[in-house]
């Protein structure tokens, strides 16, 4: 097995050859910027020799936006998008309010029907131009339900952006509550609306029911995948924001990119983050090791148990880039003595997720579905073996959501399988 030094990380040439199949059709991982991600973003884009960072005005001042965008763009293959985070404008989040584009006053009733919307789009057009973004993520309100009023705001935003934004591709934000995203009628009416008001792309962010990190609700998941597939079949690009490993399923909808980051609040969409101006609660907590084969995360002491029970090597990440510190976990010493830091764990997670995302798209829809089913089957099998000897991922254990994911796959196949099968190559 060959080990090659690769920009500070180790690239393992493994017999898992599908990882070598980099092409334009792969599902990409974008970096969802969040608290403490400045260095991670730069280093990861450097390691990957390219990548897209979705900038977060909530976590960056105007000046920082400029500097980070410039740094990322200066890296080979680096590019940025800007999420304007206009989800809950009435909440007047302190740090968002400091940005030039943020309106001084806001009232839903008058905002979208008057010059204020035009001003907002104008300001964001300028900002996107200054940051040289690869596309224009449009401001979009968080929808408790998909109502005709909300759909009208979406239409007005798209219309205004078309008038002002020039050639930059427009990504309409679709920000849905857990209630809206669980409601199939809401999703259907959203798809119908967008069929008549097609954007170049969609930036989809969806609240997790109950705030759960991994969601055990097959209908919620089926609806999201259905929505993404519908957008793709309409001819638009799709970026699914605020994702964790559960959203690898989006590959079956031929989603262009999933976005994820370090802390849990950028791996699932928490609307409350855009409400109060509370400080991020990021004090030291447990460090979690992501095992891509099980799609689960484990606290480091559970790696000790895995080692004692003879299963640690089965948790070794079968991905192209394995960080030295991660190698150390499997080098024979007791894992908890290695001193795995949160920062390494984060970066490891993102390396793995990127590799997994890239490996998902196959040449046909059926092959992609089979690949994903295999991923679930293999995860289930290894999780069962680990659980039997006491190694558990607790609330980050994928076992409890595997059946939801399986159900969502089958629903997609039943609902849109034939058309995805036919058009897969052109999506």
């Amino acid at each position, binding site marked *: 097995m060959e080990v090659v030094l690769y920009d500070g990380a180790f690239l393992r040439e493994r017999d898992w050859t599908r990882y070598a199949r980099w092409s334009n059709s792969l599902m990409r991982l974008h970096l969802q910027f969040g608290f403490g991600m400045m260095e991670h973003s730069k280093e990861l884009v450097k390691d990957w020799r390219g990548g897209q960072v979705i900038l977060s005005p909530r976590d960056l001042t105007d000046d920082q936006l400029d500097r980070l965008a410039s740094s990322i763009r200066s890296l080979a293959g680096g590019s940025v998008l800007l999420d304007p985070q206009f989800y809950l404008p009435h909440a007047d989040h302190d740090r968002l309010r400091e940005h030039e584009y943020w309106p001084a006053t806001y009232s839903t009733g008058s905002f979208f029907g008057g010059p204020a919307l035009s001003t907002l789009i104008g300001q964001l057009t300028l900002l996107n131009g200054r940051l040289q973004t690869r596309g224009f993520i449009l401001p979009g309100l968080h929808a408790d339900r998909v109502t005709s009023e909300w759909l009208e705001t979406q239409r007005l935003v798209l219309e205004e952006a078309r008038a002002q934004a020039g050639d930059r591709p427009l990504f309409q934000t679709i920000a849905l509550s857990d209630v809206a995203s669980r409601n199939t009628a809401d999703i*259907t009416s959203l*798809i*119908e609306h967008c*069929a008549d008001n097609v954007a170049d792309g969609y930036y989809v962010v969806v609240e997790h029911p109950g705030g759960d990190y991994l969601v055990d609700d097959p209908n919620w998941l089926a609806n999201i995948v259905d929505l993404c597939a*519908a957008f793709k*079949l*309409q001819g638009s690009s799709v970026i699914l924001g605020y994702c964790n490993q559960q959203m690898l399923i989006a590959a079956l909808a031929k989603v262009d990119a999933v976005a994820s980051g370090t802390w849990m609040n950028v791996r699932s969409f928490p609307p409350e983050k855009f409400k109060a101006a509370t400080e991020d609660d990021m004090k030291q907590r447990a460090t979690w090791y992501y095992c891509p084969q099980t799609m689960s995360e484990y606290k480091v002491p559970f790696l000790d148990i895995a080692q004692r029970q003879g299963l640690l090597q089965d948790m070794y990440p079968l991905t192209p880039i394995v960080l030295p510190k991660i190698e150390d976990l499997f080098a024979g010493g007791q894992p908890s003595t290695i001193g795995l830091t949160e920062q390494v764990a984060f970066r490891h997670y993102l390396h793995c997720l990127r590799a997994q995302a890239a490996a998902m798209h196959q040449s046909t829809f059926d092959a992609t579905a089979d690949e994903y089913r295999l991923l679930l089957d293999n995860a289930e099998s290894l999780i069962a073996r680990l659980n039997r000897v006491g190694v558990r991922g607790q609330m980050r254990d994928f076992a409890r959501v595997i059946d939801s994911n399986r159900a969502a796959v089958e629903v997609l196949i*039943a*609902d*849109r*399988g*034939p*058309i995805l*099968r*036919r058009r897969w190559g052109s999506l």
Partner: protein
Amino acid sequence: MVQIPGGAQKAVFSAMHQTDGEVVIKVFQPGTDAETVSREILAVQNINSARIPRIFETGTVPTPAGDCAWVREQRISGESLHSRLQRAGPLSKDEVLKLAHQLAATLRDAEAAKIVHRDIKPENIMVDSTGDFWLVDFGIARHLTMRSLTADARIFGKFTPGYAPPEQARNVKGQIDSRADMFAFALTLIEAATGVHPFWDGAKDAMEALTRSETQPIPRQLLPVKSAESLADLLDTMTKKRRDQRCRNMQEVLDWIEDIVTEEQKP
């Protein structure tokens, strides 16, 4: 002039015209809503399609019971697909593919004219003496650019149970477009190919057929063509209950059918 079977609202006669050849003359009953008649005529005139009988002339004739509108149009010598199926059973593979291709092209043309036929079924398809298929009877066609003539508040719209998609049966006017015809087209194809209508087969009445059409997927249709899986996928897609899950438009259906036909013609 010879009277031939017609619809509930009109008498139909066949005749020979000195320049247009064989024609049919449809005479609408007195009191038939003039706007309805004019919409039917307009639908045919607006669709530029090779497989819809041409209208040569229209007019009204006074009768003691009131004015009767009439239409003189091209006569298709043959029988309805319904009669053909009753008489000789399911179509052959080549006939099914021909029906699929010709009707898809006709409905693509209707879609371009923003007209929805709303009553695609074997009774409204004629098979001529050369085996070509013609779409007839635009009596309940919907002009998407014109105000609807039927009440929006009715629970059920104008439709034939078992053929109409849920949005048409439920009279959701804003959702009726060419994808409604797509749904009925697929069921017509299945019936023509197998002799069995998936929603009517074994149904005790129209309500059961309607309920099935709104709730049950069609069984997978593996017909004896080279691209059997692809054709089954197409029929499955065309008959989705949610129109957003069907093909986007009739051109997409036509392209799909052409691929299947091309594959079939390969040695």
